[in-house]
């Protein structure tokens, strides 16, 4: 199918883009990488009166060192994140997960901001943003505001963005020392949206997990943070806590069934992937903190795919 008719503007500055949105009476759509919006136009599921194309606003594309963390402009292409040495060195979870976003040709066009603002319930980057404690800055006619990623995602394809606002900046705080992270997902075909995906970040301190973050994608309308599982992992003997953590994840989610997978299968998968991701994250944390001998011994005793 072909897109329906629409008016089109390609502003050169953020202010011009905000102005176009402000005068559109909520009948505009923002075009970022277009890898989700243009299919919706082609299917005529979206029929905006006006398309505001952000692709000619250079100020929205950057990856910068900022306040000890990393700032990523909303129009930064996924492929640019994938190639960025700063991301590889300092944001291992993002570096690992970005490779699972679509295919090379999709990542060459798709943007970080578009991915987050579209908020597909099975997408990688929303879960990564929540797991990393990202702060998202939104520009609008009333000025700028900054939200924690966890508050940005509100439900199925729904975020805190108002129709006259634009997501402009993603800030990722520095990852603590002795932290191991892992992204794992399962999809029937490479590049498809995940049936289930999981982001895990674990920080070790004196041989124990001192901080844990586990966020799943594909199991709800928005990224699901498995707080009960995080609590299980923190402190004490890690060996005894892997299975309870996976159980806590299974208990915390209520995924929908669809043509791709049943509720039971998704729930099972969430437990298995979480356990594997915890294992990998611990190995990576140990690589930075070889003194955590108890954790190392525990890992050696545990089978990888329990």
């Amino acid at each position, binding site marked *: 199918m*072909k897109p329906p008719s629409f008016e089109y503007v*390609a502003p050169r500055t953020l202010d011009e883009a905000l102005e176009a949105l402000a005068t559109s009476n909520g009948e505009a759509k923002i075009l970022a990488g277009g890898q989700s919006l243009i299919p919706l136009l082609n299917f005529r599921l979206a029929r905006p009166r006006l398309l505001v194309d952000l692709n000619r606003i250079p100020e929205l594309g950057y990856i910068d060192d900022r306040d000890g963390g990393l700032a990523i402009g909303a129009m930064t292409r996924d492929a640019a994140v994938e190639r960025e040495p700063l991301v590889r060195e300092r944001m291992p979870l993002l570096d690992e997960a970005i490779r699972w976003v679509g*295919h*090379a040709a999709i990542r060459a066009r798709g943007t970080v901001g578009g991915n987050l603002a579209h908020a597909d319930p099975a997408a990688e980057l929303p879960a990564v943003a929540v797991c990393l404690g990202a702060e998202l800055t939104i520009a609008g006619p009333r000025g700028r505001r900054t939200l924690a990623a966890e508050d940005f995602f509100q439900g199925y394809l729904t975020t805190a963005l108002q129709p006259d606002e634009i997501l402009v900046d993603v800030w990722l705080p520095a990852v603590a020392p002795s932290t191991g992270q892992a992204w794992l997902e399962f999809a029937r075909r490479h*590049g498809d949206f995940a049936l289930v995906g999981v982001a895990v970040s674990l920080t070790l301190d004196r041989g124990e997990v001192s901080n844990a973050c586990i966020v799943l994608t594909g199991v709800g309308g928005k990224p699901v943070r498995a707080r009960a599982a995080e609590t299980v992992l923190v402190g004490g003997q890690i060996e005894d806590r892997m299975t309870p953590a996976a159980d806590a994840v299974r208990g915390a989610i209520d995924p929908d069934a669809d043509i791709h997978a049943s509720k039971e299968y998704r729930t099972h998968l969430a437990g298995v992937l979480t356990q594997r991701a915890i294992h990998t994250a611990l190995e990576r944390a140990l690589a930075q903190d070889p003194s955590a001998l108890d954790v190392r011994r525990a890992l050696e005793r545990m089978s990888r795919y329990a």
Partner: protein
Amino acid sequence: MPDRRMVSVIVNGRGVERAVEPRLLLSDFLRHELGLTGTHVGCEHGVCGACTVLVDDQPARSCLMLTVQADGASVTTVEGLASSPEKLHPVQQAFWDAHGLQCGFCTAGMLITTVALLREHGAPSDADIRAALSGNLCRCTGYQNIVKAVRLAAERTNGRV
């Protein structure tokens, strides 16, 4: 009268100017306006990869781009790969030699995707090749020979594609 915009695009090294509706997909611009029907349109929603072209040397689904977005850009289609009508591009030659095509519908997208891969990774592993091609569907399911063709192209070109 629908709103039309002037776009100026370099397609296969040649500058073209046209007035187009903002809703015209790049794939339709290439095929219908320029007659470059080597770029095939399969699913028209970014799943099959048949319409993949290079936009400023990066692979892109031409069905997921508006022509107006390509204003000022350089686009390479399958017609722009070979340097002369007599001599196939090394990736095309490798597909020929390794029987990397059957009906040919997916081939243009496969070739463009392969060129983009080999420019990024001169010596890709089989896993790299399969990951790179995962966004291109072949309904003849001739994937084994396509992978062989990419490997052959990589060996012959050593990253210079």
